[in-house]
């Protein structure tokens, strides 16, 4: 589904150039649940931003399915991201002045869908995530876990092929974190390809594959069969 070839990213500050991604080559198949790990400054978030098509300053090749994202212009990339990618953030990034339902509807409102269709999609997601009762509440009225749930609902409401999560449980306590990760597993089982960035080994075990970055280099890429089989057994 996704193929990166020799992707590089650097930032120039004055006369210094700092490399955050160095010749990263990566293939992610449809339906995979990939975890990206590494120490601070390894380039994890940078890689995620490249995958999310939020960043334009990288070099190399990025194939999203058959589409060469590296050949698209800014607008085309944004269109592709809007259609096919969903993002979950560590800080949830819900808009404080929108209700739960409105936050979930936000990405749909940028796709020029008919209002009825949007309403239907939002209602489905609210139901699926069991948050119908909270649809008119504002983020400040929800717990951290509930907010992240809404964040995930917003990310998947338009049925993206790829879900990217940047430290999705970083601001949650363990119980909430577990619930969120199990939700990710469920989404993955239903066919969503997931790439998560995390420091947590515990969270990493929910995925099927771990990629490790150090100083911008991809240093490890291995399957994690053990955790996946444990989850399935449950």
């Amino acid at each position, binding site marked *: 589904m996704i193929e990166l070839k020799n992707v590089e990213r650097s930032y120039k500050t004055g006369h210094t150039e700092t490399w955050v991604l160095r010749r990263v080559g990566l293939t992610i198949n449809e339906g995979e649940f990939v975890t990206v790990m590494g120490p601070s400054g390894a380039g994890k*978030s940078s890689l995620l*931003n490249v995958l*999310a098509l*939020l*960043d334009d300053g990288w070099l190399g090749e990025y194939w999203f399915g058959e589409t060469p994202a590296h050949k698209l212009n800014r*607008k085309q990339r*944004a269109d592709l*991201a*809007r259609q096919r990618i969903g*993002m979950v*953030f560590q800080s949830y*990034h819900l*808009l404080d*002045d*929108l209700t739960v339902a409105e936050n979930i509807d*936000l*990405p749909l*409102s*940028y*796709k020029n869908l008919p*209002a009825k269709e949007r309403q239907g999609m939002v209602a489905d997601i609210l139901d699926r995530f069991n948050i119908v009762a909270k649809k008119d509440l504002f983020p400040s009225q929800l717990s951290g876990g509930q907010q992240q749930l809404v964040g995930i609902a*917003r990310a998947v409401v338009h049925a993206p092929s790829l879900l990217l999560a940047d430290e999705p449980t970083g601001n949650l306590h363990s119980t909430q974190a577990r619930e969120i990760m199990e939700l990710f597993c469920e989404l993955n089982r239903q066919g969503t390809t997931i790439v998560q960035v995390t420091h947590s080994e515990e969270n990493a075990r929910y995925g099927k594959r771990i990629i490790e970055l150090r100083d911008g280099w991809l240093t490890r890429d291995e399957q994690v069969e053990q955790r996946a089989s444990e989850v399935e057994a449950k």
Partner: protein
Amino acid sequence: MRSILQDMRYALRQLRKSPGFTFTAVSVLALGLGANIAVFTILNGILLRPLPYAQPDRVVKIEGAGSDPYYMMSYANMLQLRDAVGPRLQIGAVLNRNVASIVAPGGRFQAYHVEVTADTTAMLGVQPILGRAFRQEEQEPGRSRVVLLGEDVWRKFYAADPAIVGKTLTIKSQAYTILGVMPRGFTFPVDEEMQIWSPGEVTGANRTAMSGDNVLWGDLYARIPGGITSAQLTDQLSRTQAIIAKVPTDGPPVATRIAVTGYRQSLSQGASKPLTLLYAVVFGLWMLACLNVTSLMLARAVSRTREQAVRTALGASRSRLLQQAIVESLFLSGIGAAFGLLLGQTAIKLLWHQIQRNLPLTNAIHLEWRVIVCLASLTLLTAIVVGTIPALRAMRRNVQGGLHGATSTASAAQGRTRELLVVAQLALTLVFLVGAGLFLRTIHALRQVQLGFTQQNVLTGGIVLNETSHQADGSAGTQINIVRTAYVPLLQRLRAIPGVQVAALSSVLPLRAEFSVNIAGNLDHKKAPGGQTPTFAGRLASPGLVEAFGIPMVNGRFFTDDDSPASPPVVVVNQAFVNKFLPNQDPVGHTFFMGKGRFENMRIVGVIGDVKQRTVTDATKPEMYFCLGQIEPGTPLYGIATAFIQVAIRGAVPADSLRAQFDRALHEVAPDATTTNVKTIHEAVEDSFGSQTFMARLLEGFAALALMIASVGLYGLLSFAVAQRTREIGLRIALGAPHTNILSLILRRALLLVAAGLTAGSVLAWFAVRFAKGYIYGVQAHDAVTFTAVVLVLAVASFFAAWLPAHRAASVDPILALRSE
């Protein structure tokens, strides 16, 4: 449409959530838009609104032109011009205008009684809504006692009686049959309310007399025929006029060519420049308001960095984000416009007296569709201006930085933009302050001008009497002498009022030239040098005028009670008359000839000092006073005595205290008389400063507003900067920075901005003041004192605006500031 509704709901929520920001932005926009709409309402009424005639741009005023500054036009001259072009040139003339005192079912009122030629309404393309227009034969002697009422007269004083046609009203004891009612809003000449019209009486002799006793003077108007331009009409009429002028006459000089001016243009000529200047000023105020609110929006955008980043990450396109920003700013500017409209109309009401005094066509000033369209357009423009820059800036930010809270680079760029906006505000404010300063100095200079008369304890006022009947041919046979029966008894009663030192009557008082007449005649029966007949302002006056106003006698004497109809006719002139027509001569003893009869040889008996006549700034023109006591029916200028006279009462007590007694004395003599504009001469002097005082007050107000807005802008910018740098400041203090160091950190930046603003503003003001040159008096446009004072005022205000945030910065608690570390 759906997305716009969504954005509107969100914008409303956002504005409700930030009441402080919303209040500030709406207030500033209301001031900027309100001032704009108020001035545009005035400008629309005076310059843009079409006159109430058919195809008003084709209606022109036709005047004589030539080497003299002013020409009167006789009816005979008008007919010759009309005949030269042919019947397709529709003409109409105003032959006479008086203020008439009328008793109607709805009460007693004063109306402007305008005598016009019968074809005037046809020329204007307007028909009565009731009854009919004048017929040509109603101009014949004995048939002209018919009248058309203005719609306001009919409505207010006749209760809009639908059966009004055929009824009568009395004007100066003469019965007039009401022929009809003109449409609502119709006025001719324009800018007078409460008008009634009658056909002017025209005899056979009037039709041919270019001078002498049978000449009939008037103001000529015409409708430009189709297929001819104004320039072509001017050429044609001028060629005819050149031939007419070649025929010698005994009367005043005849114009050698013709000037054709659009009627609206002729009315608003004096007002268009000051109004345009005023609109430029309020436009500047609007720009200032936009700069200020844009700055506020930029600061707000910084605090919404994360939101914009999230929206972008969720798929919002640039145009979508821009739309959201414009919708929000449209909300703000819409609310600001609503309040601004209220403020603007209130301001017009509060300043209405000044507006009426200083501008023409004021009855056309009111809210109408053009004003609403202007407001709507300005509201939209405001929304785009204040919403676009912050939105575009926000879109330049990198999404990842926004998501992760990294705003330093974005803030720095936005901070520079905000600083630029504050510098621009300071610069504009300086321009306003310079303008206000120059006008204030103008008013001061005007107040220093020597008026030539005293202002102390003098009450003045115009009176309109109902003249008793006179025969249709104007003979004196059965005429009652209004001077004997009304004016002399009135003077006696006024002089008898306790506290009154002097009372006098005159057709024109200093700086109260509401009614004036130009006279032409010969001195000592000789032709004047250069063949030009002396022309000057003619006045009637009773004894006591010079004492009432403390006007010095330069030579000879003024009128006394001994000057009567039986004694030789005498006149008094002013120094300007002597300088122009009798230089280096003793004027006393010279005679003045105005036509054969009793007033054939009028002897100059005195010279008075020059007084300011119409305005304080104009040089005094030659004038000649005729003794009111020697005027009687049948003598020249008796018509002036019956039309309008003014009273001057000087007391040993404050003039205001004499108002009631003046009114009582007048009504004891003439119960039906009405007064106009009773005020002290001091008030008349203040009113005569007219447009300068008006402009000065407006500019003072706008400058104060601008100073407030700019100071708030500077304060806001520095407060925001301090808030952004709280951590840094806390760190500095924790590392040992003294209080003064932190103060100077903030004040140094402020000083730089203020210096930049003052410099830019001074340059801008240097060029801008040239537009004010025509309005200022007694001060140079590039007056160093004004510029210096303004720079100091702005510097001091800016210092105070900067001090508060600087002081707050120096008071930052380092522990609180560094808590997150």
